[in-house]
């Protein structure tokens, strides 16, 4: 297992957004998470990438505990510098890209490699150019984010995450902020990564994509996993009424 999340609970004030969720991702697996907005999908991803702290449960990366629940029932995280180590296992692609506007595309990709992972500049640039080539935007290396289309920006963001060589890459609705005609180029890149056996978890509303690319689909609603399994089964023959209802909206 690359990542394992057991009995995760998370609340914002009074509102419990994640109610005792457990799930794990194996190496090379592509997991899609679908569900209505407010179902806790994004929060789950943000807990997995340590942007949010869990209130209960445990998070393991590569079998090592990053967070666990102590006897009193409180979630405890490992020490800051160890957490840093766990962070290097995972990457996250945001809905809003969150590129650094003051850095060129190339520097967006190389800066963290050099400053966080202490690679040499040559090494970092080689990795960056290779990834940009793969994303089909090698010619944009010297451009600044504002000069790129949304689809190009998101591809840079994916390349930036990959440049850190994570064990697992999370996508938080990677195409939701894009114009419809630009979603294709981003989905194509993710599909390509799936073929290369990159371990990925994708929160998405693109049902055909989820069905075609993922090994497993999770349907979340109201802070719980309602149903999960093989994409074909979940999409074509959902067992739960709530899943059926949700999918019906997308069929129209």
């Amino acid at each position, binding site marked *: 297992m690359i990542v394992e999340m057991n009995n995760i609970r998370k609340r914002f004030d009074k509102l419990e957004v994640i109610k005792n969720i457990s799930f794990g991702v194996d190496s090379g697996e592509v997991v899609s998470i679908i569900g209505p907005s407010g179902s806790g999908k994004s929060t789950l991803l943000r807990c997995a*990438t*340590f*942007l949010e702290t869990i209130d209960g449960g445990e998070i393991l990366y590569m079998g090592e505990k990053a967070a666990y629940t102590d006897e009193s029932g409180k979630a405890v995280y490992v020490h800051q510098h160890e957490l*840093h180590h766990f*962070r*290097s296992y*995972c*990457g*996250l692609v*945001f809905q*809003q890209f*969150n*590129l*650094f*506007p*003051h850095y060129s595309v190339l520097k967006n990709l190389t*800066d*963290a490699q050099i*400053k*966080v*992972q202490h690679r040499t500049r040559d090494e970092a640039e080689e990795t960056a150019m290779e990834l940009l080539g793969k994303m089909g935007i090698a010619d944009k290396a010297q451009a*600044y*984010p*504002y000069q790129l289309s949304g689809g190009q920006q998101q591809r840079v963001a994916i390349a*930036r*995450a990959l440049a*850190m060589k994570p064990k697992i890459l999370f996508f938080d609705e990677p195409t939701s902020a894009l114009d419809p005609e630009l979603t294709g180029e981003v989905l194509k890149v993710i599909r390509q990564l799936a073929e290369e056996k990159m371990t990925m978890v994708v929160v998405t509303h693109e049902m055909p994509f989820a069905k075609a690319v993922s090994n497993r689909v999770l349907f979340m609603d109201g802070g719980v996993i309602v149903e999960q399994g093989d994409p074909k089964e979940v999409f074509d023959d959902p067992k739960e009424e709530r899943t059926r209802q949700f999918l019906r909206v997308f069929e129209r």
Partner: protein
Amino acid sequence: MTLSTMLSTMAGGMLKTCGIFVLTLVGSLPLGMIVALLRRSRFTVIRGIVRVYISVIRGTPLMLQLLVWYFGPFYLFHWSIRGWRFPALILGFILNYAAYFAEIYRGGIESIPAGQYEAAQVLGYSKTQTFMRIILPQVIKRIMPSVTNEVITLVKDTSLAFTLAYQEVFSLAKQISASQTSFMPFVIAGVFYFVANYAVEFAMERIEKALNYYR
């Protein structure tokens, strides 16, 4: 008094005005950043102290602050204030401008979208790296217009040094004007302030342009 005597007498004052200007900026630009960060400290006490400092400084005239810094040590502790005139003046200016800069910085820092912090965190940047490499450069670009405003105000505020009888260009203009019963010194001072501010505007514009490589 000939015009050239007037000019050379006032040149000394111009130099002093420039001195106040440069020292104030050198002190208050970095100090403002420290204050802005303390303002966001996680310790309530520190936040509280900084807030009081900012509101006292912004809520009272600079002229009063200068008087307090200069005469305060004597009235509070009966220390001799010999030689304290210029240090008090610069201290007063720095602490005053630091408060204003701090609020500008704070506004700039708060205007940076949370996504920038999150992206940096996920990539593994430390807090310091995130601030220095990702946040600060963007803050600087955003606050440039407000900083320019404040710097131009400072050029003119230097004349408040007359409160502590520091012979900067405006005090001298007043005094020479009184002794020569002439408006000429004020004209000279006016031209000086205008030229100084023109230089400031020019420099700031250059910096803003240099930061325009991204949006």
